[in-house]
């Protein structure tokens, strides 16, 4: 049952980013282009996503544990530091030049377009590289 819920969750996510049009980089860039040919669709995507998730979370967090796991695993860090903001800024830069963020980019792989594959490979390289540097920094500190 647990695995099925995860698969269904992924399925809803993949369908959602496709239906919303977020898998189309030009649509995302036109949303970000508030001084040009603005396409406001993504406000509706974000809005609906936030309403459903915040209401759903309210109900879920009344329970002490999830249905198929022992505990909720939520981020514990509270620090708004340069790592968080610098990372978010770099992500914004990449999002702004390509029109792709991770979810839609990964989902779009099944459409078989070369650009999607290139983007996800480059993104993977960036992720692996950053994790390795972080791990090395941590080991040298310990």
């Amino acid at each position, binding site marked *: 049952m*647990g695995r099925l819920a*995860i*698969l*269904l*969750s*992924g399925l809803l996510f*993949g369908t*959602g980013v*496709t*239906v*919303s*049009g977020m898998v189309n980089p030009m*649509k995302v860039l036109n949303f*970000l282009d508030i001084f040009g040919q603005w*396409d*406001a669709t993504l406000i509706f*995507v974000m809005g609906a996503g*936030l309403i459903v*998730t*915040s209401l*759903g979370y309210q109900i879920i*967090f009344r329970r002490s544990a*999830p*249905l*198929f*796991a022992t505990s909720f695993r*939520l*981020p514990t860090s*509270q*620090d708004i530091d340069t790592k*968080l*903001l610098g*990372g*978010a*800024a*770099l*992500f*914004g830069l*990449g*999002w*702004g*030049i*390509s*029109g*792709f*963020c*991770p979810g839609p*980019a*990964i989902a779009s792989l*099944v*459409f078989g*377009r070369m*650009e999607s594959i*290139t*983007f*996800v490979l*480059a*993104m*993977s390289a960036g992720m692996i590289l950053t*994790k390795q540097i972080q791990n090395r920094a941590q080991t040298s500190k310990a």
Partner: protein
Amino acid sequence: MTITEFTPLTGLLGGALIGLSAVLLMAGHGRIAGASGIFAGLLTLKFDEEFNWQLVFIVGMLIGAAFSALSFFDTSSITFNGGPLTTIAGGLFVGVGTVLGSGCTSGHGICGLSRFSKRSLAATCTFMAVAILTVFVTRHVLGA
């Protein structure tokens, strides 16, 4: 630059589905539905329990996108921006940035804001502002 049609209804529907996905993953497995974190977890290639659920989620995502394309979504509307260099640079920045910043549009923008995380609010404002500025500069200053 290609003009895209304003589609609020499919936007609402897609957003609601992404929300349901986040709710279901939290209710069932107690996890944040953040695409970058889940995908980056897979890349560690440690074939443990973590890897296992992350793989199931990503496979689900791909099936969902494939199902949409086969039924109602017209993939021919998809238009990419710039050439291979733009795509590679974009991918690299997104990869580095989401690992450093611990999340992306889904993890911070949907899940984080929905649990009123101050870190996610700071991250979301930052990446939105930088992305808007980037598009402004590339389209209206450099005129690409």
